[in-house]
């Protein structure tokens, strides 16, 4: 695989996962003191990071076919599950885990093809 595609594809995925983490933190209301200001900060930072992802993604779309670029999105759900469980402390039912495993396995097959 082209090193340029690998580097910028992974960079784009890390940016989208970080952007989603910050957005989730911004969208959940909290009664804690100073939480509103913190949520606005997270929201703005999330928009900046997602804008960076967007232009990285456009650059990849300009230079490579959709079928080469899109498999990088398969890494997103894996990283998101790690972030959701380890940082956001989200608990999932066994049915949800089966569904997520199907999605990730499916995305891996799509990437391999």
């Amino acid at each position, binding site marked *: 695989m082209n090193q340029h595609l690998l580097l910028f594809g992974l960079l784009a995925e890390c940016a989208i996962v970080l952007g989603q983490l910050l957005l989730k933190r911004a969208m959940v209301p909290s009664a804690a003191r100073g939480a*509103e200001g913190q949520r606005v900060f997270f929201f703005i930072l999330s928009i900046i990071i997602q804008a960076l992802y967007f232009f990285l993604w*456009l650059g990849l779309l*300009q230079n490579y076919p*959709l079928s080469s670029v899109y498999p990088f999105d398969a890494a997103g*759900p894996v990283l998101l599950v790690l*972030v959701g469980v380890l940082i956001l402390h*989200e608990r999932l039912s066994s049915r949800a885990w089966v569904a997520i495993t199907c*999605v990730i396995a499916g995305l891996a097959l799509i990437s391999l093809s």
Partner: protein
Amino acid sequence: MTFPIAPPSPTRTLWVLIANILCVTCAELFLKTGATASGGDSVLGFSSLQSPYTIVGICFHIAGFGCWMYALRTVPLTLAYNFTAINQVLVPIAARFILRNEPIPPLRWMGIALVVVGFILLVPVLARFEEKAERRPLGGGSASA
């Protein structure tokens, strides 16, 4: 700046997530058309902004982002993100049949089938989660589904 805190009604978030999926799929197709039409070799695709297709794609992305923000108020990020991974099925299929540029090999069809199974399994999980979210105050405790 303030954020809306009213709880969503049952199944509305599910439909909002489906609207997000359709918006993002349309956005990706328009962005690809715009990026291809404008050409260029830069790392960041600023030159794509010259194409009207790119502007339409950005509008779809903004609409999808609005839906996404609404859904994230109650749905766990892990569930929502994997639910909307169906985009990665819809985009190659649409690219094949609408843009007519990329054939789909058998292994990819198998992957598509698995993602669709995961998507179908997640529908009742999300619906049940919304029912729970309606009964408990927002911001109380960690998410579980």
